[in-house]
Each structure stands twice: as C-alpha cells, then as structure tokens.
C-alpha cells in the first residue's frame, strides 16, 4: 500500500511591537521576571484591555503578506481556561471572526513549487511563563508574567503539506515573509515563533483524512521536520501492523528523536468562547487596508521573479538572494553601485555568505559599496579574480576599500602591453630551451613559460594578455 501524509501547521508568531497588545508594558525579551507588568496584564480586578493599534497594523500587514483576505469586520473573543500562567483565566483571542482568512504561500522543494493554503490568521495575547524550581528541597512553581499580553498572530495552514521538507520550507517562508514586513523577529529560541503540527496518513488517492495526531514541544524548524518524518513512519507502521491511530497529542523528544504520547487528557477542553465585551469590534475600512498594502515592501516571491527578469539571474540565485530582505537589499545596493548582476550574485553567494549569515549581512565589514568597488577592479582588469579573493579577506579584517588595499600592496594587474612584452622578452631570452621545446610541439613548455612570466610579475600580469602576447612572439 502507498501512503500519503497530510500535514497542517499552527504557527504562533510574536509581533515585534514595542508594547503589549492591550497595555503599554514593554515586550523586551529576557528582562528580570515580572518587571514588564501592570494591572492590565496582571489581570487585576477592574482593569480593561485597550487594543494597541500597532498590533492591528502589523497583523493586517502579516495577513496581506500571506495573500489573505482582510476582514472589514472582525472581533475579539474570550477563550476561557484555568492555568496559573493565564492571569485573567481567559485569553483574549479571535474565534469565529478572525482578522484574516483564506491566504496562501508558495514553497519550493526539490525544484517543485506548490501553493500552501492558509486557513486563517488571528490576533491574540500570549500567556505568561511558569518556572519550576527547587527551594529548600521543596519543588516550587513560579509565574513570570512579562510575556503575558505580548501580541501574537496565530497562522493556521490548510492540510496541504505532504512532507517534513515541505513543512520546513513553509516555516522558512513564513519566517522570511514576517521579517520582510518587519512584523516579527521570528526567533524560535526566544519563542517568537512557535509551531504545532497536525499530521495524519492516508492511502494515496484517498479522499478522506486519516486520524489526526497533534505534535507539540517543537523547538526548531529541524525538530518540526524530524518529528514529521518520525511520525509518518510511526503511523504507517502502526497501520500496516493493523493498529488504529489514536487521536492524541504527542510530544517531540529532541534528544531521542522520537514522539511520545502526552498524558491522556482527562476530558476534552471546552473553552466556552464568547465575544469579548470589553473591546469593540474591529471595523477596518478599505482605505485603511489599502494604505497598509501600499506601505508593504516588495515581498520575497515578487522580488525573486523580478530578479530573474530584471537582472537575468538564474531562478536558484534569485531565490537564495531574496530569502532575506537584508540580503536582497545588499545585492541590489551592489548593483546600484555599478556591479554586474551575475558577478555580484556569484560573489555574494560564494564569498560573502561564506563569512556572514544572511540575516546579519548588514553588519558585514564589506558593505555593498565596497563589494562593488572590488568587483569593479576585476571588471576593469586592475586585478584578477584570484587576487580579488585575497583582497576580499583583507577587506573583511581591515574594513578598508579594495582600491586602497590593491594600491598599497602593489596588487594591480599589469595590463600595460609594453611592460608585459619586456617581461616576456626577458623570459624568452632566459629560457631558450623551453622555447625550442614548444616549437618542437611540447604544449607543456608554454605553460612553463607563462608560469615564469607570472612569477616575474608576482602574479600581477593580466593572464589573458600574457597568453596572447607570448603566442605572438613564439610564432
């Protein structure tokens, strides 16, 4: 039997607003516990939420960037449950009228491009964090409410994903898009992106879904991919051995690389959603939505397509270069400073990305203008591509311009016909034996002579000119 996995992801992305969703407390990560709290996010009696307009703006931006429909009318609801990290014992979220629906993103895996549907995107507040510790040999649990009220968007995908690799690419794409529009820092370590997986397998070609299993406790994109791969194998093996898949929540064990069943739920959760009476409905005009659309930067897919058509880059180059907004900006700045697109693309992908991360490229000592300066020296024939790599290393450590380094170290390529001819003449005079060998048909001798000429010029002679002139003289 051939099986097909069906995967949907629920992704929580923390919006990178300066203040929380319903109060003016800071959202900084890593501050001492409970220092970024106020009566509102502590859920003291009598307090009321007030929606942070920046959250609304970033939420709408996120929806637009994911090609979703923005609702003219949406509302907040209360999701009721008891837990010590939830100070009001309800989370303000959106239930039946989310702010965005019906979006999609494009992913490419092994050269195959697919559209992945996004069911909905909604706004909600984060809960606090429990810290478990031991004090005087007693186990204690403490609550840190710095994170309570931090704004989140929950992005729910359609069950369109078919492999761990696709899920991985989907997450990468969400990360790319969120960073492009500056909606989130998307850092899984700091919890600004969290992901739960829903997965089932079915016989290939079947219309109905198999029994779904939820996977939680996923701390990295790699864990998401690995857990899906594991779970696909486990579910297929179960079905093939005649077992039934149970509806359950499983946790990922990053050390053992397995999923395991979470303690069986004692009863199904009934969150008793109802409209949040303390917040008026969110009514957005078309003008407001258009205004945000107009303010969005060019999105990665559009930019990739433009890189192909405008700069004639291969699809692969365009995809790599647009995977981070900063990287694409870096590339275009170099082009703006006069570089040839393909040469710049090659240099960025092979040299620049070898020494810096794409998302820290703005910190690279060789900024786009300096890189363009270096590439110009190659194009003008001042230095060879090989020398340029040495110069690039020097630029990284000193932060200086390529021209200055080349000048100071005498690395200029010799393209002066007279100077090169003088060296050729002296090399021919000193190596008559090799000249004879070449004329006698030994090709190897030519290589030797070129090597001697390059040695005399300490590698600075223009190699193409050396070859041309030497051949003329040997005729």
């Amino acid at each position, binding site marked *: 039997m051939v099986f097909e996995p069906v995967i949907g992801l629920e992704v929580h992305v923390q919006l990178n607003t300066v203040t929380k969703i319903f109060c003016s407390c800071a959202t900084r990560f890593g501050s001492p516990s409970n220092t970024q709290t106020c*009566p509102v996010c*502590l*859920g*003291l*009696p*009598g*307090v*009321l*939420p*007030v*929606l942070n307009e920046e959250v609304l703006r970033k939420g709408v931006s996120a929806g637009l960037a994911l090609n979703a429909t923005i609702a003219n009318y949406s509302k907040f609801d*209360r999701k*009721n449950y*008891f837990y*010590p990290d939830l*100070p*009001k*014992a*309800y989370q303000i979220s959106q239930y039946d009228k989310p702010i965005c629906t019906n979006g999609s993103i494009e992913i490419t895996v092994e050269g195959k491009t697919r559209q992945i549907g996004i069911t909905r995107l909604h706004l909600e507040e984060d809960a606090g964090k429990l810290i478990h510790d031991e004090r005087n040999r007693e186990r204690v649990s403490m*609550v840190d409410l710095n994170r309570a009220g931090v704004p989140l968007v929950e992005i729910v995908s359609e069950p369109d994903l078919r492999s761990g690799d696709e899920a991985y690419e989907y997450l990468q794409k969400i990360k790319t898009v969120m960073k492009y529009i500056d909606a989130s820092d998307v850092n899984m370590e700091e919890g600004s992106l969290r992901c739960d997986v829903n997965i089932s397998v079915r016989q290939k070609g079947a219309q109905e879904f198999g029994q779904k299993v939820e996977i939680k406790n996923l701390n990295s994109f790699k864990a998401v991919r690995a857990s899906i791969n594991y779970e696909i194998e486990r579910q297929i093996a179960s079905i093939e051995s005649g077992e039934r898949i149970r509806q359950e929540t499983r946790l990922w064990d990053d050390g053992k690389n397995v999923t395991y069943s979470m303690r069986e739920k004692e009863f199904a959760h*009934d969150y*008793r*959603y*109802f409209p949040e*009476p*303390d*917040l*008026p409905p969110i009514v957005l005009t078309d003008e407001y939505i258009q205004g945000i659309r107009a303010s969005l930067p060019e999105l990665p897919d559009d930019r990739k397509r433009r890189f192909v058509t405008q700069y004639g880059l291969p699809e692969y180059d365009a995809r790599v270069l647009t995977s981070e907004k900063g990287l694409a900006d870096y590339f275009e700045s170099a082009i703006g400073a006069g570089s040839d697109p393909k040469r710049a693309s090659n240099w960025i992908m092979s040299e620049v990305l070898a020494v810096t991360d794409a998302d820290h490229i703005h910190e690279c000592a060789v900024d786009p203008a300096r890189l363009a300066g270096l590439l110009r020296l190659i194009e003008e024939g001042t230095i060879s591509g090989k020398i340029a790599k040495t110069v690039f290393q020097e630029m990284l450590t000193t932060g200086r311009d390529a021209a200055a380094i080349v000048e100071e170290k005498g690395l200029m390529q010799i393209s002066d016909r007279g100077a090169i001819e003088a060296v050729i003449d002296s090399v021919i005079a000193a190596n008559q034996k090799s000249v004879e060998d070449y004329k006698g048909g030994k090709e190897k001798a030519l290589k030797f002579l070129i090597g001697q000429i390059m040695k005399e010029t300490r590698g600075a002679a223009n190699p193409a000119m050396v070859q041309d002139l030497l051949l003329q003289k040997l005729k």
Partner: protein
Amino acid sequence: MKQRITLKEGTALLASRKASSREIVTALLERIESLDGSINSFITVQREELLRQAEESDRRRAAGAPLSPCDGIPVAVKDNIITRNVRTTCGSRILEHFVPPFDAAVCRRLAGAGLLLLGKTNMDEFAMGSSTETSFFGPTRNPYDRERVPGGSSGGSAAAVAAAMAPAALGSDTGGSIRQPAAFCGVSGIKPTYGRVSRYGLVAYASSLDQIGTFGATVEDAALLLSLICGGDPGDSTSVERPVDFMPEDLTGELKGMRIGVPEEYFQGVSAEIVERIRERIGRLEKRGAVIVPISLRYTEYAIPVYYLIATAEASSNLARYDGVRYGYRDGEARSLTELYTLSRSRGFGKEIKRRIILGTFSLSSGYYDAYYLKALKGRRLIIDDFRRAFESADVIVAPVTTTTAFKIGEMIDDPLQMYMSDILTISANLAGIPAMSVPAGLSSSGLPVGMQVMGDHFREKVILNVARAIEEDGEPIAPRL
C-alpha cells in the same frame, strides 16, 4: 451644622467659609460612628487618612487654589470600585484583604476635583443581588426600617445617603443595582448611558451591562456628582466623550410639550399602592404640560431570562481570575493546583456567586451556546428595538422601579428565582444601554419610600434628570427618622 449636608450645600458652606472640609468630614464621621453600627453601610472608613486629606483641601482653599468648587467634600464609593491603597472587597471573602495598587478612572476624576473618599460601601457580593444580603460583611439595613433591606446591590451607598452619613455616593448598576436601592431608600440614583462613565477600575460583574452611576439626596446632587465622573477614557474602549449638558442650571423642571411614554407592561405584577402612586405622579407631570403617551415595550417579559443568561455568562468569565494564585483568598489546605482552584473558589465565594458562575458556565458550554447565550443575544436585540420604537413616540419613559417597597431581611434570600423576578422593571435599561434613574415619589402607607423610574434614549441624561427634577418638585422631601 445641619444633620444633612448635600453636595450642593456642602459646596456653598465651603465657598462661604462657613465650614471647613475638616469640619464637614468630622461631622460625617461622627454621624457614621453613631448610626452605622445599626445600618452597616460601610465596609471600610479610613478615618485618619480622610482627616488628613480634609486638612490638605482646607489648605488648598485657604491658598485660593481649590481644585473645583466641590474640593473638600467627601463622597462614599461602592466597594467594587477600585481605590488605590484602600482595600476593595466587592463584599466578598475572596477579596477581603485586597488592597489595589491603582485607582479607578472615576476615583482619579473625583480626586482631580478635590473630592475625598469618605469610605467604601457595602454591597451584594460582586454586585450579585438585590438586597445587600449576600455581602460577606453582613447585610446593610434600610434606614427607614432596620428590619428591611436597603435594596441592592449598591445598598450601602443608598443607605449611607438616605441616612445622611454621606452627602452623595457612587454605585454601579448592572440590572438595577443603583435604581432599586435608591427606590427602597428614598434617594435619587442614576444609571447613565452605557459608555458615559469609564468602567476602568469597576470590578466587572457583567461587562456589557455594568455602568457606574451616582446617588444623591436630591436630583441635582446625583446630576452634579455624575458630571464630575463622566467622560471618555482612553483606558475604556467602550467609553465615549459626550458634552455634559445636565448641570444644575440645565435642570429647570420645564416639561411643556414633552412626550412622556408610559409602558403598560411596567405596571403588571406591581403592588397596587405603587401603581396608584406612580399614576398619580404621572398626572402631576401632565399638569405641568407634558403629553402622556401610552407605549408598549412588548418584549419586557423576556428581559429576565435574557438578562440572567448574558449577565451570568459574562460573570462566569469575569470571576474566573479569582483563582487563589496571585491575590485574594488562597485556601491553605490546597495540596495541588486543582485543589488550589477548587478550595479557594469554593470557600472564597458565597452561594449566590457560585450559583451564577455555574449558570453562566453552563450557558456558554459547547452544545448549549446556541440555545442559551446566542438566543439571549437575539432577545437583547428585540429589547433594544423595543426602546428604539418607543423613543420615536416618546421623549422619555416613566414607570415604577420596583414591584414592591423594601422587603424584609431574609424574606427572599432563600428564593433566588423570586429575587431575580424582582429585577423585572430595571434590567431592560441595562440590556438596551440607555440611561435610567430612580427618583423618590413619596412614602407608602407603611412609611416606606416609593421610587419612580425615568428612562431616556442614549445620552439623553439631561431629559431624564429634568423630568426627575419635576417629579421631585411635585412632592414633599422625604427622610428617615433616625
């Protein structure tokens, strides 16, 4: 000094330097000392702090810089309104020792005008009740007859004003909690339009119905205090800024040509004596030149089920935060998280609270939501439409406030359904969000106050206060014999 000092009189005394804030405060504290042992209006009075603040006010006035004409007048505040550094109990064991670190928006406004906090008044636990009997701090007694209830849930505020222990007071009204005690205690009480006063710092019972309002010994006082607390607040997204057009000089009692609607539904199941009294008072309004218009509020009978579904649903969520984790009562016997929740809440909340939490939890539960909560929202819409139609033919609506005069303590407490039914005449105004008030219409044959209700369209406080002013002028002032 006179036994009763109204807000208006106190302001005049201070302006003419016939009395200092300290003298007014001292007189009121003495009156509380001598009377409140038997009435139990106040849960908390911070005597020393109050005197200190009165002296500060006197210094401001002496320096020629009072914050407002009312600077130095103390008012009582219902104990579900958050007061910084003064414990705020909501009449509940679960918040018995809760001292908030912030002030409600209304308290900031009062302080900004130099008014002082006289004390925190008793109430039905979390404002759930119609008699102030469900308070953890014991029942408040009606100043007209101490065997009787003052009404509720703002019974402490109403009784304090009725007994002249407070010049005026703040209360809250979710289903009649200002108007019904105002009627039972013979004072004026107004629930303004939903949104007129910020709810920031009002401990929520039912968020879509709760509204802070005022009590005064006179209509003018209730209006004056309301003018000091109302206005839009960025801290409450449901509040709105509207001009204050109901200052004392706006309230002329002039009714010529005003269309006064009388809904027949509001006279059914009401005691004969109250019906007679209200009709007689309507006659007097007609003599002033008002046009009496019979109207119908035909969905009134659904108000009780609609209200008790919506209010309890919201309450079940609003009161979930009292879990023993961060503040409030935490049961010492708890050995697990679940026990911490169940024991703290079982022992911290009174019976009526738990009854309503269970009702609300049930109606929001999956499988019941559509049949109860959603249906109640539709019913609410019908009641709103009822009023919209009514205000096409009437400028204002008058009716009784209660079906009976103040009942005896213990008479209804074991019959919750009967107690819920007694709210029938007041809850529709909350469901529709319209302003409504109760103004005294004299005493019954047994010497108990009768209240008359005036309701207006959204933000038409001026109209209802003006009609209330006329009703007040049409009768003799009443006061309990103390």
